[in-house]
């Protein structure tokens, strides 16, 4: 190989190494946010740790497929949700898969009736709920609903990002979010009334 070619190649290698380190640092800086979402998607802290480690292993291996300047957090969470599906973790944690229709609204309305307007009126009614009750209500949501609620409310993703991460249309994100939150409120209201 001639001298100039070697020099060019060396420069390219150095540039790639720099890009890679930058990618890894940016990805690691998001680890707490990635963990936060993972923790609410799966049942236990151990599972969440495993899932985050698998996610970073895959991300570091395939860093070249990330387009610089795009949303890295969404890119990482997409890997994470796909791994979560692949591992079948969601299947174990789906209390029911029935679509929510009239019955759901009926129940929510019943709870609103039972609790009276008071429940809606009092902001403090929310603050009286324990942290545990929210965490367990969230974990009991059917997985399709939990995924969007966790991504939007905890991950603070836009509807468009959540749609991209979960690979579903934006309208599906919106309806699952609506139903998921409704379920969450019902569960919390039941817990509060109990």
């Amino acid at each position, binding site marked *: 190989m001639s001298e100039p070619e070697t020099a060019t190649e060396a420069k390219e290698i150095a540039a790639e190494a720099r890009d890679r380190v930058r990618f890894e640092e940016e990805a690691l800086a998001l680890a707490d946010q990635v963990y936060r979402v993972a923790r609410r998607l799966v049942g236990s802290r151990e599972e969440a740790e495993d899932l985050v480690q698998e996610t970073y292993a895959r991300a*570091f291996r395939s860093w070249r497929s990330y387009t610089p300047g795009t949303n890295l957090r969404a890119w990482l969470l997409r890997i994470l949700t796909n791994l979560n599906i692949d591992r079948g973790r969601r299947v174990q944690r789906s209390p029911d898969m029935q679509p929510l229709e009239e019955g759901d609204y009926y129940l929510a309305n019943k709870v609103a009736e039972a609790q009276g307007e008071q429940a809606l009126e009092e902001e403090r009614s929310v603050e009286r709920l324990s942290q545990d009750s929210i965490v367990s209500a969230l974990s009991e949501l059917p997985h399709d609903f939990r995924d969007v*609620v966790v991504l939007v409310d905890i991950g603070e993703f836009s509807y468009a990002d959540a749609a991209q991460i979960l690979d579903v249309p934006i309208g599906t994100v919106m309806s699952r979010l609506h139903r998921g939150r409704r379920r969450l409120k019902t569960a919390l209201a039941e817990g509060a009334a109990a």
Partner: protein
Amino acid sequence: MTGHDDCEKCEELLQGFLDRELTETEVALAESHLDGCSYCRRRYRFEESLRRYVKLSAIERMPPGLMERLAELRGLEA
């Protein structure tokens, strides 16, 4: 007093409003409705505090050592 139809519209808009996903026109529509409808205003406050609370409650710090284990994964080859 605001009509029933408006409240249904607001119900539809509330989610996007709270999630900051509405267009400017829709935001103006939702705001003008909220101005005149105390029922929706209460709901709005309730929903907003619920979202805030869900977020705060669900936040859990990374377990100790995880960051180090992630950092060790750097340099993995495909």
